């Protein structure tokens, strides 16, 4: 009974908030970080698929070097995408957001899985699916803030 009365009081006269975390000092979130890295994954995947192996010895060395660099960048950017998505998922989104977006957990889980798939494979389809997943998260994120932010890509 007292709990209900206090809850009512809190609704009418909201008390000051005290934070158990300190997300305020570093709590600026933006899914664009994940968009940029996911784009890099897609770009590297396309470059790897388009790379042709030459027949001469010098060309093979250059090919191996370029391919290694593309793979390393794809690996790194996919991991960064995963990190950025997990931060949004676990730090920014709250249980209240689930009421409006009941598939939120599933969306993030699948997006994180796609990051892993993009690391393991050279799959343009999965890289494009990752971009689509990040776009969906972008849309949800800005909707929770009541803002309309257009989706765009750098390439």
């Amino acid at each position: 009974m007292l709990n209900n009365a206090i809850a009512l009081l809190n609704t009418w006269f909201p008390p000051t908030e005290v934070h158990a975390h300190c997300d305020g000092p570093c709590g600026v979130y933006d899914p664009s970080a994940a968009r940029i890295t996911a784009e890099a994954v897609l770009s590297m995947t396309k470059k790897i698929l388009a790379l042709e192996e030459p027949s001469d010895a010098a060309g093979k060395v250059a090919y191996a070097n370029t391919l290694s660099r593309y793979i390393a960048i794809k690996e790194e950017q996919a991991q960064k995408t995963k990190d950025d998505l997990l931060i949004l998922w676990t730090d920014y989104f709250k249980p209240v957001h689930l009421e409006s977006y009941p598939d939120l957990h599933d969306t993030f889980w699948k997006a994180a899985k796609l990051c892993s798939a993009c690391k393991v494979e050279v799959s343009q389809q999965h890289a494009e699916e990752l971009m689509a997943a990040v776009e969906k998260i972008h849309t949800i994120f800005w909707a929770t803030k009541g803002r309309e932010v257009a989706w765009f890509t750098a390439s």
Partner: protein
Amino acid sequence: MGMDNGQLGNKPSPQAKMLPKAGWAECAQWLLGQRQRFVVRENSMVPTLMPGDTILAEMGVAVQIGDVAILRWRGEINDPECGRFASSKVVNMPSDMLMIKRVSEIFYGEGVYLISDNIHEPSARDSRHFGVVEADKIIGRATSRLATAL
């Protein structure tokens, strides 16, 4: 801060004191303006305080080891953990917010070491990250729990 991260079953440290429920005396002091009402956000003070708990606090008093302190964070944080996530979070960003933490150590009355009760919460930030806090940043101490989260 996501609830998924929380280690909700963690026990507080041995020196941690649970906050008592607000009795009539506490409520009377609140009505007389001698206590201030706060609502707790996030879960790094679990199990002492759950997100959504309403507490009463005595303002402008010195804290003792074991107290639950309320501090005004007005400075900048230099957090290597946040730096790791710099792509998603801006570090060293000026802020003004109230935080609630357990007093773990007091150094000559001038510096206070604050700790989260739920130290296994990955996103918990306290003196393990931002170091000793000046005593003048402590603005009060929690005295009781007025209501628990519904």
